[in-house]
C-alpha cells in the first residue's frame, strides 16, 4: 500500500512537471518516466499473482513506456512546435489539484479511496489537454491520464490490461498520423491552424 502511494505520488509530481514543461521532447521524456513509475508498480504487484500474467504486464509496460513515447517523439521531431508559456490558470489549477491529491492521500475516503487517489492523479495531466494547442502535449496529457487510471485495473485479468494498452496505442498511432499529415498539409503546429 505504501509502495502504491509513493509510486502514484511520484507519477503525480512528474505530471505536474510535464504540465509546466515547454519543450515537447521533454514532455515526452516525462511521459516515459510517468509510464515507468506506474508500470513497474503493476509489474511488482503481478509478481505476487499468477506467474502466467507477468508477460502481459511486461508487454503492457513496454507499449506504454517505450512504443507510445517513441511515436510521440517522432511527432515532436516531425513538427516545429511553438513553445508557449503555461497559462496562469493552469498553474493555479494544477497546484489546487496537487493539494486535493495530498488531502486524499492523507485522509482517504472510507470507500473507493484508491479510485479517488487515481482520479486526482489523472486530473493533473488533463490540464495539458485543456490548455494545450500543441498536439504532442495534448496526446501526452491523454496518455498520462490513462496511465494514472491503469492501477485501477489491477483486479481485472492481465490480458485485459494488455488489450487496454494496445487500444491506447492504436488511438496514439491514429493521433500521430492525423497530426503529421495535418502539419504537412497546413504547415501549422497548432491544432486550430489545421482548417
Amino acid at each position, binding site marked *: 500500500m505504501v509502495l502504491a502511494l509513493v509510486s502514484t505520488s511520484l507519477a503525480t509530481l512528474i505530471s505536474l512537471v510535464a504540465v509546466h514543461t515547454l519543450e515537447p521532447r521533454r514532455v515526452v521524456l516525462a511521459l516515459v518516466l510517468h509510464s515507468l513509475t506506474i508500470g513497474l508498480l503493476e509489474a511488482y504487484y503481478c509478481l505476487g499473482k499468477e506467474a502466467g500474467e507477468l508477460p502481459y504486464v511486461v508487454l503492457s509496460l513496454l507499449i506504454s513506456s517505450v512504443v507510445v513515447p517513441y511515436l510521440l517523439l517522432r511527432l515532436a521531431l516531425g513538427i516545429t512546435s511553438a513553445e508557449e508559456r503555461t497559462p496562469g490558470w493552469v498553474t493555479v489549477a494544477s497546484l489546487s489539484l496537487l493539494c486535493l491529491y495530498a488531502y486524499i492521500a492523507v485522509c482517504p475516503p472510507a*470507500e*473507493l479511496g*484508491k*479510485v479517488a487517489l*487515481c*482520479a486526482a492523479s*489523472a486530473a493533473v495531466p*488533463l490540464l495539458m*489537454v485543456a490548455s494545450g494547442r500543441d*498536439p504532442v502535449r*495534448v496526446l501526452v496529457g*491523454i496518455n498520462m*491520464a*490513462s496511465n494514472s*487510471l491503469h492501477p*485501477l*485495473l489491477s*483486479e*481485472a485479468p492481465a490480458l*485485459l490490461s494488455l*488489450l*487496454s494498452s494496445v*487500444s*491506447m496505442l*492504436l*488511438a496514439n*498511432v*491514429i*493521433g500521430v*498520423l*492525423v*497530426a503529421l*499529415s*495535418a502539419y504537412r*498539409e*497546413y504547415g501549422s503546429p497548432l*491544432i*486550430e491552424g*489545421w*482548417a
Partner: protein
Amino acid sequence: MEELALCLSAPLVSSAASLLLSRAGKRGVQWPTLVGGSALSLLASLLLFSAVSRHGALDAPELYVYAEAADALAVVAASIIALLASIYEWGMCIEGRLPAGVYTALFLSLLFCSIYMALVRDAVLLFILVEALIGVSVALVVHSRDRAAPEVAFRYLVITALSALSVLLGASVVTLATGSSDVVGPSGGGEEALALAAICFIIGLGADIGFFPLHSWVPDAFSASTSTVNVLFCAEHIALFLALYKLLSPASHTRYVSWLTMLLIALGASSIPFGYLLAYGQREYMRLMAYYTISDYGYLLLLLGVALGEPAHLPAWRMYLVNSALMEAGMLACLGIALAREKWGGMPFRARRMLALCFVICALSSLGLPPLSGFYAKLLLYKAVYSFLLKRTGLIVTVAFIVALLSLSLVPLASLIRVFHDLLTRDVEKGSEALKTPRVAALMVAPLTTAGAALLLGLQPQILLPG
C-alpha cells in the same frame, strides 16, 4: 458458441484479409473485400440470431460475450447498415485520403468493434472496445478530403479519448465495488459506488454518442466526414447505446435508480428541443442531419430512462433504437448522394424523384407517421413515457409532457420538407471538382432498402420485437 465466434471473426478476418491483400499489391480487390466482408458479417449475424432464437440466449464466458434475441437483432441491424454503407461506397467511386486497403480494414474493424460491443458483458472489455472504436472512427473521419477533416478528427480524438477515460473510471469503480467486471450477472456491493460508476458511464458514452450537452463534436464531424462514414456511424450508435444500457443495468438494482432515471429523462428531454430547434436553422444538409440525430438521441435517452425504471419497456427502447438507426442511415445516404451530384454534374430527374421519395419515406418514418415503422416505435415510446410519468407526476404533468413532445415533432417536419423539395426540384451545375461516374444502381440500394424497410416494418412491426 460457434455462432458467436463466427459473428465476431467474420468482420475481423475480412479486415485482416483486406490489409494483407493491399500489402501484397493486389489491385481491384478493395470493393469485393469491403462488400464481401460486410455480407459475410450479415450472414454470420443472421446465423447468430437464428441460434439465439432457438436456444433463448447464448453465453460464451471465454469471449466475455452474452447474447439474447434482442442483442442478436441489434447485431443484424448493425450488419445490414454496414452492408448498405459498403454498397453505397462502391457506388460513390470517391477516393479519400487513406489507401484503399487501409480504409477497407478500418471500415470492417469498426463493424467488428460495434458487433463485439453489442454482445459484450464485461465492463473493462467494453472500455477497451470504446477506445478501439475511437481510433477507428477518427481514422475514418480523416479519410474525407474535406479541408476541415484533420482538425475535426483530432478534436474528435481528444474528446472521445477523454470519454474513454471516464468509461475506464466507471468500469474500475464497478470492479472494485462488486469484485467483478461482469455487468450482466447479479451484482452486489456498494450502491453509492454503482451510482457513481453509472454517472461516469453516462458522461463517457454520452460524449462518444454525442447527445446534448456532450454533442459539441457531432455537427463538425458530420459535416467533415464522407457520407459513407456517416451512414456507417449509424451502426456504431446502436452498439454504443446498447453498451450504455448494459453498463447502467447494475445501478438499476440500487436505490439510486429513480435519480438515474430522472437524469436520463432530463438529458433526453433537453436533447429533443435542442436538436430540433438548431436543425431548423441549418442550410447545410449534414449539419441539419447532425442536429436531427442529436434530437433522436434525446428520444432514446428518454426511453432508456423509462426502461431502466420499468424494464417492461425495454423492447420498446430496442425497437426505437434499431428503427432510428435504419431510418437515419437511409436519410444520410439520400443526402450524401444529393451532395455529390454537383461533382457529377447533376442527376437525371427519374433518379432525383426516386431519391426524394426514399428520403421522405425515411424522414416520415423517423418522425413517427403511420403506416411506417417509426409509427410503432413512437407509439410504444409515448405509451411507455405516459405510463411511467403518470405513476410519478400525475395526469396534468404527464399530458403536458406528451403534448409538448408531440408538438416538438412538428418542428423538424418543416426542415425535412424543405430538403425533400430541394432534392426533387433543384438541379445543379457541374462543379469544378469532377468525379468518376457513379454506379447509380449501387448508390440507390441503401435509400431503397431503408425506405422498403420502413414500409415492411410498418406492416410487420413485430419483427423488431423478438421474444
